[in-house]
């Protein structure tokens, strides 16, 4: 595997879920993880320790030598937020397909019907997309969409504003209008562990302002949404994400996905990507 793929941080477990040592896959290779005296560890197949970071309720590791720290989400530290470990879902698709689906709003009325979207409110207005060179991240801002029930805490339909951020090839952070606190952003993330190039484990995590819902209600809401996404992700052909134009047809609503694919190509991140039209 090339450094362009190995030298990233990857989520491999929810910290609260680590009890006995266990095996998992990262980029097609076996790794082992566990916790001793409150400190999490990860080892490769030969028993060599791998670097670890504990952040956002999850354990992160890297099979290479990451040349930068794991990204941060400063907004998530503000007081009053509830941090929600959603759990994990394994999906038979490329890790990049899972991230790209998370960046897409146009599917809301059809896949998350009457929750995140509903006909006839299907139009996607122009929004801003940029690869921020100084931080090497993809950002989409001023994304607006009408949602019947934007969050567990939403009382009725509202036009929600979104910002999407891709701080690492298999991670995305969504900043979203917060129904009970206008002016603040709810934070919903998608951390994707590439088990192989066509199989991934998805760890959503949230930092929300919601004083009313129970933890299990917030978890159930997000799990329902992701189960609906999974029915799509396991039925896209090919399973890998095509990076070359020609295999799939983007429109203006897909500007975030176009920028994401271009950025993956630029940084040489080809794990889970299809480079030549089959």
């Amino acid at each position, binding site marked *: 595997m090339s450094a362009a793929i190995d030298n990233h941080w990857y989520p491999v477990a929810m910290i609260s879920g680590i009890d006995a040592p266990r095996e998992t896959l990262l980029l097609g290779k076996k790794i082992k993880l566990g916790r001793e005296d409150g400190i999490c560890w990860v080892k490769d197949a030969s028993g060599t320790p791998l670097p670890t970071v504990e952040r956002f309720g999850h354990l992160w590791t890297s099979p290479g030598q990451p040349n930068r720290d794991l990204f941060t989400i400063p907004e998530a530290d503000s007081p009053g937020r509830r941090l929600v470990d959603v759990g994990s879902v394994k999906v038979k698709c490329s890790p990049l397909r899972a991230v790209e689906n998370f960046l897409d709003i*146009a599917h809301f009325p059809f896949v998350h019907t009457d929750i995140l979207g509903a006909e006839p409110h299907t139009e996607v207005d122009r929004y801003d997309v940029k690869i921020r060179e100084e931080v090497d991240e993809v950002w989409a801002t001023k994304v607006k969409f009408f949602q019947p029930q934007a969050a567990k805490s939403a009382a009725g339909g509202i036009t929600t504003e979104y910002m999407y951020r891709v701080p690492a090839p298999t991670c995305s952070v969504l900043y979203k209008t917060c129904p009970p606190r206008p002016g603040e952003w709810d934070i919903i993330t998608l951390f994707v562990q590439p088990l192989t190039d066509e199989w991934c484990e998805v760890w959503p995590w949230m930092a929300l302002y919601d004083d009313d819902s129970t933890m299990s209600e917030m978890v159930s809401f997000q799990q329902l949404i992701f189960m609906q996404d999974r029915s799509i992700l396991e039925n*896209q*052909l090919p399973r890998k994400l095509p990076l070359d134009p020609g295999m799939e*047809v983007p429109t*203006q609503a897909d500007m975030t996905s176009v920028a994401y694919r271009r950025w993956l190509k630029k940084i040489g991140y080809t794990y889970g990507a299809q480079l030549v039209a089959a």
Partner: protein
Amino acid sequence: MNWIAVGLAKDVPPGVVIPSRIEDTEMAIWCTPSGRYHAWSDRCPHRGMRLSHGFVRGETLACIYHGWQYNQTGSCDYIPAHPKLTPPDTICVPTYTCVEEGGVIWVSLNSVDDPLPVLGARVPVRSVPVSLSAKDVAAHFGAAGFTTIAVVSDYDTLLAVQPCTDTMCVLHVLAAPDADRKEVSRWVEDLRTTLEGVPA
């Protein structure tokens, strides 16, 4: 390969879409509300989603992922994210020749004009998957091909065989109109057991 049966019309009524395949060609088979059958490549050109998971809306097939609608020629004529846009003609789904005749849905991947198989007065009974290749089924009956194989029975049975993989095919079974359907159904089950015991 000319006409191949891909399903029975009664199993794909108007407004329904199902997945099907002829060897490596995966298809979405669907029927318009007005009763016209279509066989298309099972892939939306937008993001590669299977169209067989989609839904029939009016005389179009819509993809479940983003609701893109494809008209009867396979061209995209509506993109919900951009309701005012007229989609370019280049956005289209590959289509295959498909007709319904005698209650059977027939597809020709190479669009030949060959006449459709002769079914006589027989009527469709049911479809059953069998763990054996279509070629091996034909060989079992000493038939030259597998498009249709007349099988001697009390019910004047005819098999229209759909090749799927090296180890799987589907038998679309037709029989005399006055044959008892339950009896034919039991006959088919016995046939399946026999065929699955045939060494490949």
